[in-house]
């Protein structure tokens, strides 16, 4: 950086005229920031306005903040219940995904046995299949197991569809870990399970955090699977509930309540992101860099 900036003033550089910084890059970056942030900000501000203000002056600030909108969305529009449902389903699915995914990735990365490659490719191939293809039979599989519209049903299906990427990501991660520590633990009399849980899993922490964040967001934002497998309105997850709310006639006229519901759905994720932004961006992009 210093070298680059020093260059124009060095004697080799021909023009001695002072360089004016080009305003275009800064302007372009600023414009895109506005385009990105403006709709989000607008939704947050609108969630504090009255219906009348929303309808008649969409660009103005609220005269006095209507916290009642949020309360109404949380209770009367059931956003609170949907939030809670999402927490249960995503929490359970995330735990199951991380446990099963890391076990499979570790077993395939560190043990040689017949069929190892076959199992690996069975998991990896599933990442390239569109979920739409499986949708119809999946509905009947879940129905026959009596799991339609239940938390365990959603948790199992969420995990089943999140495990392949987790295996793919952690497989290469476990390969790069040094084997000396594991060998020493085996010599000390550790069982295979103990080596995994006490030695290798802690070593793999950075990878687990990255793929864990990726999975959390993917599962939290899941829509297609619950839409088909979770028909009971009492068990709607957040995305599903919000979508239902936005098209239901009853809430069509309650603009302020809808804006509040929308804000409740997006604000926690954005706040958590600003707090842990470096980790989260690394985790989200890690999958594509691989």
């Amino acid at each position, binding site marked *: 950086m210093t070298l680059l900036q020093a260059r124009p003033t060095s004697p080799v550089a021909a023009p001695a005229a002072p360089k004016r910084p080009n305003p275009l890059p800064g302007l372009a970056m600023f414009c895109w920031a506005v385009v990105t942030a403006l709709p989000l900000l607008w939704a947050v501000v609108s969630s504090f306005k009255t219906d009348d203000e929303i309808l008649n002056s969409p660009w103005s600030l609220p005269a006095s903040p209507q916290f009642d909108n949020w309360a109404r969305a949380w209770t009367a529009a059931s956003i609170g219940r949907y939030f809670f449902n999402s927490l249960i389903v995503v929490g359970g699915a995330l735990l199951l995904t991380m446990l099963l995914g890391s076990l499979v990735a570790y077993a395939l990365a560190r043990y040689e046995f017949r069929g190892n490659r076959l199992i690996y490719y069975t998991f990896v191939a599933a990442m*390239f299949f*569109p979920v739409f293809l499986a*949708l119809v039979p999946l509905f009947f599989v879940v129905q026959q197991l009596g799991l339609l519209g239940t938390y365990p049903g959603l948790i199992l299906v969420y995990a089943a569809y999140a495990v392949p990427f987790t295996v793919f990501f952690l497989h290469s991660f476990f390969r790069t870990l040094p084997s000396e520590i594991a060998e020493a633990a085996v010599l000390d009399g550790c*069982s295979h399970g103990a080596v995994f849980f006490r030695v290798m899993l802690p070593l793999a922490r950075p990878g687990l955090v990255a793929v864990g964040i990726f999975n959390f967001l993917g599962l939290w934002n899941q829509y297609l699977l619950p839409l088909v497998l979770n028909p009971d309105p009492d068990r709607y997850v957040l995305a599903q509930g919000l*979508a239902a709310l936005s098209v239901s006639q009853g809430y069509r006229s309650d603009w302020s309540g809808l804006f509040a519901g929308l804000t409740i759905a997006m604000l926690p*994720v954005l706040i958590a992101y600003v707090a842990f932004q470096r980790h989260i961006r690394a985790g989200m*992009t890690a999958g594509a860099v691989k």
Partner: protein
Amino acid sequence: MKHGRWRFLLGALVPALVLHVVFVLSPYAQAFWLSLTDWTGVAGEAQFVGADNYVRLGGDSLFLDAVRNNALLLLVVPLVTIALGLFLASMLRTSSSRLGQGYRIVYFFPQLLSLVVIAVLWSFVYNPNTGLLNSGLRAVGLGAMAQSWLAEPAFALVAVMVVLIWSSVGFYVVLFSAAIEGIPRELFEAALLDGAGKWATFSRVTLPLVRESVQVAFVYLGIAALDAFAVVQVMTVGPGGPDGATEVIGLSLYRTAFSYGKFGYASAMGVALFFATLTLAVLALRSGRKERLELA
């Protein structure tokens, strides 16, 4: 130790494999079989009809609308997103680090939101009377341009494209700027010394060296463009309208299966979508291999 090894391997692999076979592999396999039947959901009453479903797909005008719309999305969304992403990422390279960090944080926001949240948000933005877009246009004196964006066949699909692009540019800015940071600084300095302008630096230095990231981006964005279900289903009128203007394959499939109960026919749509995705992935991988040979 040998005994413990097998017990550990079985314990590690079997639960995940059972889950995988029951909920992932078997549904995929069944879908291919179902697409050759006229099954309507009654157990044991699936008649084998051969390729009938596929023949019918060819004459189903709504499905053909969906194919045309997905093809348009596939053409426009990845290209515009990648162009904007590369442009902003190379701008970020030259900006001060504090400001650049701030922009990265903001650009990434939409990536964290569910497509449902994004679709609901943009349905408010596009609202003809109270929406951000039309009232903004009126405020700056362009009221004549105000539209009912999602109800006009000419604009509805463009409106969907804008939402998809808006929601994904930030992710690729971050991805590309990570790749650009991986390029040795000396190369940019050498280009500067050789008198290369901004465009030459970009096309001769930056672009060739981030090519792999761009290819990955094409695959991911292509898959997203072949989907587009959530945005279309939540945001557009009908959904899928007006007049099939925003119909997509996923929506046709969903409606055919879960509203009309034609599960065999819907599965044929799923198989068609699968082959489209497969073609995309193979094309991207093949061009990737060629590129590597040229470099070597």
